[in-house]
């Protein structure tokens, strides 16, 4: 039977089957289909995590070497590692906060705009971070175009991490903006209009109607952004400062300086990186489930409803 013909006929047959059996056609779907993907993705992820934990306690794992905590002792005694940890957390916090602060007004500005402006803002999302980092070097690095035109100070590889934060800002603002836009649906607009008639105060409308709408996507999006910043490698390698490193590049640097013997220390550093990301993930899951359990409620503040 011709494919298109069968596809069309199925529409009418489906109605006949449902009429004859007097019930909706049930599908043979089950959770069995999830098993291969969950085993593959979950298995490889857990193997990866177990691999770094194992390598941090067993320096010569491949040669069946002895277990020990030497790498962890050295790690906690290393002032460079502590600096890296502080720098990583600071960069994650600042880049996430800046991205959130800009994406909210941007999303509201784009809410009633035509699709071209929205598409332009969304365009950088699929661009790899490494390309954005290269562009920042070309524009804002030493002898970059901004330096030549405006004689600005180069911000690439600065010790505060301005260049690093700027790359994340350029990449994460579009992501968060699209996330906010998708949560501002038609229903929410009509709710906001109803609130406008009840309360003339813009602050009340923001606190009572818009903030409850945006809280969930914003918190989840921010946690995803922060987790990404903590775990990224290529962006700090291109635009990050030489000292302090971020946690991931600290692990690369220590192997480059001390050689393969430092692999256990590097693995311990990566375990700390994973722990930070897992904490963020747990908070995100808790928030997602809590948000679902409570439901989405948008109410005006007391005395205004």
């Amino acid at each position, binding site marked *: 039977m011709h494919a298109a013909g069968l596809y069309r006929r199925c529409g009418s*047959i*489906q109605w006949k089957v449902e009429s004859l059996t007097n019930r909706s*056609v049930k599908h043979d*779907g089950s959770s*069995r289909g999830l098993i291969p993907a969950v085993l593959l*993705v979950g298995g490889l992820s857990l193997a990866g995590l177990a691999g770094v934990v194992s390598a941090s306690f067993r320096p010569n794992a491949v040669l069946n070497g002895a277990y020990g905590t030497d790498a962890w002792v050295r790690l906690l005694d290393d002032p460079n590692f502590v600096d890296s940890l502080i720098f990583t957390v600071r960069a994650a916090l600042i880049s996430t906060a800046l991205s959130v602060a800009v994406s909210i007004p941007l999303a509201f500005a784009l809410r009633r705009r035509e699709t071209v402006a929205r598409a332009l803002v969304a365009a950088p999302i699929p661009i790899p971070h490494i390309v954005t*980092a290269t562009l920042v070097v070309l524009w804002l690095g030493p002898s970059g175009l901004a330096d030549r035109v405006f004689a600005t100070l180069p911000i690439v590889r600065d010790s505060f991490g301005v260049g690093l934060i700027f790359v994340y800002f350029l990449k994460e603002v579009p992501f968060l903006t699209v996330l906010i836009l998708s949560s501002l649906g038609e229903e929410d607009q009509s709710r906001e209009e109803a609130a406008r008639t009840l309360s003339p105060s813009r602050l009340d409308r923001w606190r009572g109607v818009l903030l409850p709408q945006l809280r969930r996507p914003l918190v989840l999006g921010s946690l995803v952004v922060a987790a990404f910043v903590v775990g990224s490698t290529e962006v700090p390698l291109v635009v990050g400062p030489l000292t302090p490193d971020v946690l991931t590049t600290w*692990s690369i640097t220590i192997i480059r300086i001390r050689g393969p013997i430092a692999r256990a220390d590097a693995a311990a550093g990566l375990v700390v990186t994973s722990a930070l990301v897992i904490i963020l993930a747990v908070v995100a899951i808790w928030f997602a489930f809590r948000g679902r359990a409570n439901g989405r409620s948008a109410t005006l503040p007391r005395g205004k409803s």
Partner: protein
Amino acid sequence: MVVLLVGPFVLLPIRVFADEWRAPNIIPQRFGLRGITRVAEDGLLVEAIANSVVVATISAIVGVVFGWPAARSLAISRNARGAWLAILLPLLLPPLVVGEGLRVWFLRLGLADSLIGLVLAHLVFVVPYCILILSPGFTPELVRRESAAMVLTGDLKQRFVSVTLPAMRRQIALALALGFTISWAQYGTSLGVGGGVPMLPLLLVPLVRSDPQVAAVLDIILIAPPLFALALSQTTASKAI
């Protein structure tokens, strides 16, 4: 703000053809094809591009094969929040952690510094995205048509070829494109698992400083698949409307 986000990309094609661009000049002194020629003639860069194409292609195909039944189950299941969580959580893991951790096991299995090892490591990030893209394609309408096709033909293969495949072809194309893109740009996993295998993102990082013109050419090569995926998603969205 839109200009700030999109504007920097204008510089990339200019840098590709700027054979000579010394400070403090604002306009390049000489245009040419040095960057493109260097990429075409450098054996290591060509090998890196070829390796990235092979790994990304295999990862995308395997990602769709594994993602297909999972996406179907997730679309049909009414209470799939836990399953979604299990599928999506690995995306938050730092790629370097996955790569370095898998290297420990892959060294024993003889998969470290191999293309198969790279494909396996990339799948951690490719499969969840393939599931995300494929899942909305299994609409209730398609599921009902599939059931009717089973009543009509009783043949799973014919149901797949005649009903499921035509309805899902755009989702499949998009999942393949996105899967390719995710694998194509992997840096951390590639560095961890296959640091010895030349891959496009691994060679790009040192070139950003040492030869910005060649880096710009590699950047253009690196953003071509994501832009294709974006165009494909826009076309799919407009056809769906």
